[in-house]
């Protein structure tokens, strides 16, 4: 990493070392005071008792008060560097895990998010910090991976039709004997591919918009939005001989009307698309004491429970269609999920044992 200012290397260690040194120094003064002052008191009686016979006291010169004070001063002077050195070492020892954290955190970037601090089980404040940071790196790694996966998938979904379009037109134009009919049919295929790209880009934009969060919060009735969506989907359902049942009671909540409409439209499209002929789709809206709920239930193939979570990831389809790409991109339920999260709504999905899905979205009631 370039352009990173060098950290002030030792400032915290110096700041910690000074109080440690001061503590050691003060402790030294206290010890000397406790030892020296009583001794100085004893010594001070010597001159008064000088009249007593020298045989009793005099085995030699005692330690004079001056020498005692001088000795103490020297000891205290010597204590200063010792205390500073000891304080520096102790502070350095305490700060060692912090250095490890700093060095690793500096080295970790988007490219090597798999690296960890690995300070072991949290035993003190610093190892706990390391533990929390490791956890953060793990979550970042997951989210970066999801992002990378998304970009790779989006690029695949966008490039393949582009390649198809280009090859289709190149091959059609390179044919020296192409007649109007051949060129017309190539143009029609190119138009259909354009429509496919348009729908994909629209779905990607819807996903990006809903992941950005709410920009407006209007009062709306889920039943009315559902009615609007159902009207535009009726033909599609009839075409696939799917029976639509509606059970729409007023369910008032607050949210972004466009996002909610896209949530309901994606749920219904999904229910129609992953169904079998003569299947059922049932849409229910209702109000309970605290929530406005929307439930979409459809018949269809049996879905294993362990596949449910995967369906809400972008570009995940249940089973690869054997006949090329169908009309879905694997974005519908990801959009539903993103809109629900943006509205703080809870999303419950059940795989029905007889086949198909039952998805319920619970919105909290209108807040102020």
């Amino acid at each position, binding site marked *: 990493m370039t352009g990173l200012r060098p950290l002030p290397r030792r400032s915290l260690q110096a700041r910690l070392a000074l109080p440690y040194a001061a503590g050691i120094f003060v402790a030294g003064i206290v010890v000397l005071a406790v030892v020296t002052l009583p001794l100085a008191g004893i010594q001070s009686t010597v001159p008064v008792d000088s009249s007593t016979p020298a045989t009793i006291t005099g085995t030699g010169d005692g330690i004079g008060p001056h020498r005692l004070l001088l000795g103490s001063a020297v000891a205290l002077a010597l204590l200063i560097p010792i205390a500073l050195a000891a304080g520096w070492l102790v502070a350095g020892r305490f700060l060692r895990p912090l250095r490890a954290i700093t060095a690793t955190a500096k080295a970790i970037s988007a490219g090597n998010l798999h690296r960890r601090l690995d300070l072991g089980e949290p035993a003190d404040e610093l190892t706990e910090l390391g533990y929390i940071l490791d956890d953060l790196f793990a979550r970042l790694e997951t989210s970066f991976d999801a992002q990378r996966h998304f970009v790779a998938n989006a690029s695949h979904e966008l490039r393949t039709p582009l390649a198809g379009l*280009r090859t289709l037109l*190149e091959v059609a134009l390179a044919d020296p004997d192409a007649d109007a009919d051949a060129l017309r049919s190539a143009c029609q295929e190119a138009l259909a591919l354009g429509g496919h790209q348009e729908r994909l880009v629209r779905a990607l934009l819807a996903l990006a918009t809903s992941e950005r969060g709410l920009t407006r919060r209007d009062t709306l009735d889920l039943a009315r939005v559902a009615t609007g969506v159902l009207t535009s989907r009726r033909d599609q359902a009839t075409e696939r001989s799917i029976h639509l049942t509606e059970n729409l009671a007023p369910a008032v909540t607050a949210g972004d009307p466009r996002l909610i409409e896209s949530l309901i439209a994606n749920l219904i499209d999904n229910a129609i698309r992953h169904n079998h002929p003569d299947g059922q789709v049932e849409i229910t809206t209702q109000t309970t004491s605290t929530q406005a709920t929307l439930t979409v239930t459809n018949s269809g193939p049996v879905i294993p429970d362990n596949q449910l979570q995967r369906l809400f990831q972008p570009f995940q389809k249940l089973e690869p269609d054997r006949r090329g790409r169908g009309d879905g991109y694997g974005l519908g339920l990801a959009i539903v999920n993103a809109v629900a999260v943006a509205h703080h709504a809870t999303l419950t999905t059940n795989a029905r044992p007889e086949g198909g899905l039952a998805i319920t979205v619970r919105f909290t009631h209108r807040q102020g």
Partner: protein
Amino acid sequence: MRVLVVEDFEVLARAIGTGLRREGMAVDVVLDGTDALDRLAVTRYEVMILDRDLPGVHGDEICRRLANDRSDIRVLMLTAADTIEDRVEGLSLGADDYLPKPFAFAELVARVRALARRANPPLPPTLSCGDITLDPARRAAFRAGRRLELSPKEFALLECLLGSPGLVLPAEELLERVWDEAADPFTSAVKHTMHRLRAKLGDPPVIQTIREGGYRIGPQ
């Protein structure tokens, strides 16, 4: 030259098939990995154009199996993933070439031809025998400097014979290499096309008919 196109995006797969057929190749198109493996089990292809992200059996898996079987088919990977890592991974799985989407069709054709030349023994870019020369890339054949107006099938037949000069090629093998799966195995298409090719090549005759139903060009 027999080519297998494995690509799950149908419009692209069909367009590649049409374009390559017009270049005189015999092309089969399949839309998923399972069909590709079935096809590889019964037909000898020279080149396979393989999408990586396939339903059924993944393209990587197909590549791995071919590498395990020491197959001599040349694989061109055609995928939307174009980072350096993707290319390195694809090539190390056993692909012979890697072309990211979207691509120019002319480049795809050139790469398929380059792969086909890497036969065993390698073929020169221009084939020749006696006074006949054939340039596959320019789709032109000449006899003694005179340009021959050949149909795609006649051209492919001549290309096949010139690729193995002096060897007897049975009619069944020519049928497999020049015609695609739509051809009836009991057809006399080889015989008829050979007849027209000989007429266009003119005199003296260069293609010999061997008694058990085979053909040969050049000295024995």
